C-alpha cells in the first residue's frame, strides 16, 4: 500500500463525489483540507448522520470518508445503513472509516459495519491518499452473509484451517457469484 511521496504518478479526484462525515469542527476541517489538497472538488460535508443519509439518498457517491464519531459510534451505523438501505451504486461505495479512538465496546461494531478500511487519527495526507487508492481497486468482492454486508475483509487467501480438509458430511458451500450490474436481486433493498 506504500506510496512514494516523491512519485510523479498522477491521480485524479476532480470529478469524484466525496461524502465526508465528521461531527467535530476540527476533524471536518482537517479532512476537508486534506482531500481538497489531494484534488477533490465535489465534497458533501456532513456533520450529522441525518445529513449524510440525505446526501447518500440524493447523490451518487464515489467515496465516503466517515468518522466513527466516538463515543456514540453513529458513524458505524451510517456505514451499515449505506450497505443495507442505499440503492446501487451507493451501497457499494468505497468507505474509509476514520477514528480518533475506538472504545472496547465498539470494536466489533467498527469491524462489522461494512467499511473498507479503518484509519486511525491523526493521519497524514499520504496515508489518506494511499487508502483512497487502495479502496478504489477493482475486483474486491462484496459479501452478503448473514448480518454482514460489505467488502470481503480477507487480505490473503490462506486456504482451509491447517490439518483436516473438508469434512465429508459437510453440506456443499452455498455461495453464489453475482455480477453487480444489473442486479435484480438487490431491488428489495431500495431505500425507504
Amino acid at each position, binding site marked *: 500500500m506504500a506510496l512514494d511521496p516523491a512519485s510523479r*504518478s498522477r491521480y485524479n479526484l476532480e470529478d469524484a463525489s466525496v461524502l465526508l462525515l465528521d461531527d467535530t469542527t476540527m476533524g471536518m476541517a482537517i479532512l476537508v483540507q486534506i482531500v481538497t489538497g489531494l484534488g477533490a472538488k465535489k465534497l458533501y460535508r456532513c456533520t450529522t448522520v441525518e445529513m449524510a443519509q440525505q446526501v447518500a439518498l440524493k447523490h451518487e457517491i464515489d467515496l465516503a470518508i466517515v468518522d466513527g464519531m466516538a463515543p456514540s459510534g453513529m458513524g458505524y451505523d451510517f456505514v451499515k445503513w449505506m450497505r443495507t438501505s442505499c440503492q446501487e451504486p451507493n451501497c457499494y461505495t468505497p468507505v474509509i472509516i476514520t477514528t480518533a479512538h475506538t472504545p472496547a465496546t465498539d470494536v466489533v461494531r467498527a469491524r462489522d459495519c461494512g467499511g473498507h478500511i479503518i484509519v486511525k487519527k491523526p493521519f497524514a495526507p499520504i496515508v489518506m491518499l494511499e487508502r483512497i487508492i487502495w479502496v478504489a481497486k477493482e475486483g474486491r468482492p462484496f459479501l*452478503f452473509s448473514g448480518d454482514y454486508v460489505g467488502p470481503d475483509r480477507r487480505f490473503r487467501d490462506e486456504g482451509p484451517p491447517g490439518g483436516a480438509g473438508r469434512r465429508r458430511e459437510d453440506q456443499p458451500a452455498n*455461495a453464489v457469484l453475482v455480477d*453487480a450490474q444489473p442486479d435484480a436481486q438487490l431491488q428489495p433493498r431500495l431505500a425507504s
Partner: protein
Amino acid sequence: MTAVRFVFPKPRLAKLLKMPGGVPVAEALERAQANLDTIRPTCLAELQALLELTEARFEAMGQAFDDQQLADLYAVAVRGIGGGEVCKTPAVDLALTSLCDLLDHLRTARRYDREAIAVHVQAWRMLMAMGEQPGAAAVVDGLRKVSARYAAA
C-alpha cells in the same frame, strides 16, 4: 447454514482516479500540507478550548468511580485527537489517545484512579507548550505505562 453471496461491483472511483489530468502525488501532498498549515491557528485555539474544558470537568470529578463523569471526560478528550499533528504538537495526539485508553479501561473495569487521569490532563497542557521537543516522547511513554496498567484489569 448461512447463505453467502458474492458481488463484484466496479467502483467508479477506480476509473475517475485514472482519468487524464489529475495531480502528481508529490504536488498533491504538498498542497494538502499547505492547506493544513492554514488551519493551524484555529486548530490550536480549538485544542486549547478542549483542554480547558477537560480541566474543568476533571476538577468537578469526585473521589469515587462515576461512569457518567468518565464518559463525559472521554467525550471531550476524544475530540482533540488529530489536532496535535496539525498544530505541530504530535505528542498531544498520543497523550490524548492514552487518556482515552485509560478512561475506557477504567469504565470497562468500573475502577477509578484520579491520579492517573490527573497526570494525563497535566501532561496535555505541558505537551501543548513543548511542541516537537525531544522530551515529549518520554512524557508520552510514561503516560502509556500509566494507562496500560488498567488494560488487562
